[in-house]
């Protein structure tokens, strides 16, 4: 890879050991993908929950902080693994909390802003079209690439950190225009309604693509989706298919016309009702059984919080309800009475975490949770590996099920 004089100095250690590690790491990745040089990035966003990072990863972060590592660009974080204001009731241990505390301390010493959110594009600072960034969390990346027109690869925690320490990332993948052109073309004939429907559509397209290197152009939407709809659509597509970018014809900024992204040379495949039904049929749960209802993945916006608060009004929930939102939204939701409305009904709102990355297996075992209902197609996809049987339902069906104390999906069919 071609290096500037400043980059050579970083690699030789003139900017300290953390910068040297960061350059060595990014060179390995850049060479693997055939990057010719680095591109400067303006923001970094790091996934670093303690279950994933582990003791060895926390020690690594502490070592960089001890070596006076310091980020060169604004750098923020994905959801934490522990809500330090509410972890014992979930069955999380002091060991888990202490690992997270050490991780937070190391990050703060390096100048990282602990935003603890996977909806930074709704709450912190959305990137703009053409802006090169180094974002972690697949939902953040696909939204930023697709809706905002920013340029980011999926950046795992170590690579996002390397970008934060240097202000750079190897120029490969989605940083190159040629890799942003459509490779598959889909038509849809029905506008999805609920957020669950958007997630199912995203999941179907993601499964059909099944690769980071396949980019869809989708046509047939008659209305402009909202930010929350795009959020669930993209997060599900990225989760089910590892897809980092989608184009919606006439809607997303890089696809004003079909020719803009090369979609005119592709044969369109229709997404059918059967496709959607088949996907949904995988997530009907275990008959009437239900142990926990979860909203998250991605964290909820203020608008979603209001919808849940309204649905909870006057209800007494018989099943545990966990709602995961960002610290930014939590503050507003608290001030507006939405947290109290949800918790008065019997739910619990967690701040700065997301269910699947907060030791999901351990809290499931501690609470006897196996049958999980959610409106998130992303969460439904992930959580099976942690020992849960997921069911996918609309937000209102989730709340109704929590109130009735059972999975109502079978009865509704």
């Amino acid at each position, binding site marked *: 890879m071609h290096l500037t004089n400043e980059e050579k100095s970083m690699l030789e250690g003139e900017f300290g050991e953390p910068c040297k590690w960061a350059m060595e790491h990014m060179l390995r990745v850049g060479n*693997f993908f055939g990057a010719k040089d680095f591109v400067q990035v303006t923001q970094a966003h790091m996934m670093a929950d303690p279950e994933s990072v582990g*003791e060895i990863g926390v020690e690594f972060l502490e070592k960089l902080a001890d070596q006076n590592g310091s980020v060169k660009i604004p750098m923020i974080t994905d959801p934490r693994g522990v809500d330090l204001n509410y972890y014992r009731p979930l069955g999380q241990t002091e060991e888990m909390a202490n690992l997270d505390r050490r991780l937070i301390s190391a990050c703060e010493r390096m100048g990282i802003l602990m935003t603890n959110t996977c909806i930074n594009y709704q709450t912190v600072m959305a990137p703009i079209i053409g802006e090169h960034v180094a974002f972690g969390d697949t939902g953040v990346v696909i939204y930023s690439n697709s809706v905002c027109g920013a340029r980011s690869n999926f950046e795992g925690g170590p690579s996002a950190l390397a970008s934060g320490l240097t202000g750079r990332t190897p120029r490969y993948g989605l940083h190159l225009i040629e890799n942003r052109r459509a490779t598959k073309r889909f038509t849809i004939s029905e506008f999805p309604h609920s957020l669950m429907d958007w997630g199912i559509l995203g999941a179907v397209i993601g499964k059909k693509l099944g690769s980071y290197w396949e980019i869809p152009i989708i046509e047939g939407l008659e209305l402009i989706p909202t930010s929350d709809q795009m959020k669930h659509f993209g997060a599900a597509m990225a989760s089910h298919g590892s897809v980092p970018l989608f184009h919606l014809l006439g809607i997303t900024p890089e696809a004003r016309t079909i020719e803009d992204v090369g979609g005119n040379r592709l044969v369109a495949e229709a997404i059918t009702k059967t496709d959607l039904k088949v996907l949904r049929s995988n997530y009907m749960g275990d008959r009437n059984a239900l142990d926990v209802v979860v909203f998250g993945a991605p964290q909820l916006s203020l608008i979603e919080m209001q919808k849940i608060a309204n649905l909870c009004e006057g209800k007494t929930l018989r099943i545990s309800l966990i709602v995961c939102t960002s610290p930014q939204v939590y503050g507003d939701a608290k001030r507006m009475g939405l947290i109290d409305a949800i918790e008065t009904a019997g739910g619990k709102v967690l701040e700065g975490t997301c269910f699947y990355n907060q030791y999901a297996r351990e809290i499931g075992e501690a609470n006897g949770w196996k049958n999980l209902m959610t409106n998130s197609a992303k969460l439904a996809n992930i959580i099976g590996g942690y020992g849960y049987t997921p069911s996918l339902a609309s937000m209102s069906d989730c709340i109704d099920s929590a109130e009735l104390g059972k999975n109502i999906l079978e009865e509704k069919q």
Partner: protein
Amino acid sequence: MNRIQLSCHIGLGPSVSGLALVTSDDFSARYDLNRLKGVFSRPSHRLFGKSYVGKIMVFNDVKGGVASAWMLREMLSRKLAPRALLFNRVNPILAQGAAFADMTMCDRFENVDVTEQIKTGDWVTVEPDKGVVFVESN
């Protein structure tokens, strides 16, 4: 015994040998594994219930999230990790994770589907710096 040589893109990590565990399924450390026990835990995964520890894992592609980039090193630190990962095509997360962990990983095999060229139980030697994989089968 049959011995074949596969060519691939220059990979990551040291040269290693071991027994293959092969699937045409995709892979995510977060979605598919019980990393505390070293087994595949996702019921819908074709390798559900099987141990991946010390194996040369062969997959089609990668799916899902960014967590695998931390997890590979974490798994190695507890000695509950695969010996190597081979893919038809890898995404940035697994490549970043292998680079961070110094775990052996290769992809982009020349003109073949690697999940069809290697069978579970084959003895596989991976030389990522040369971009070659040797497969011995009975």
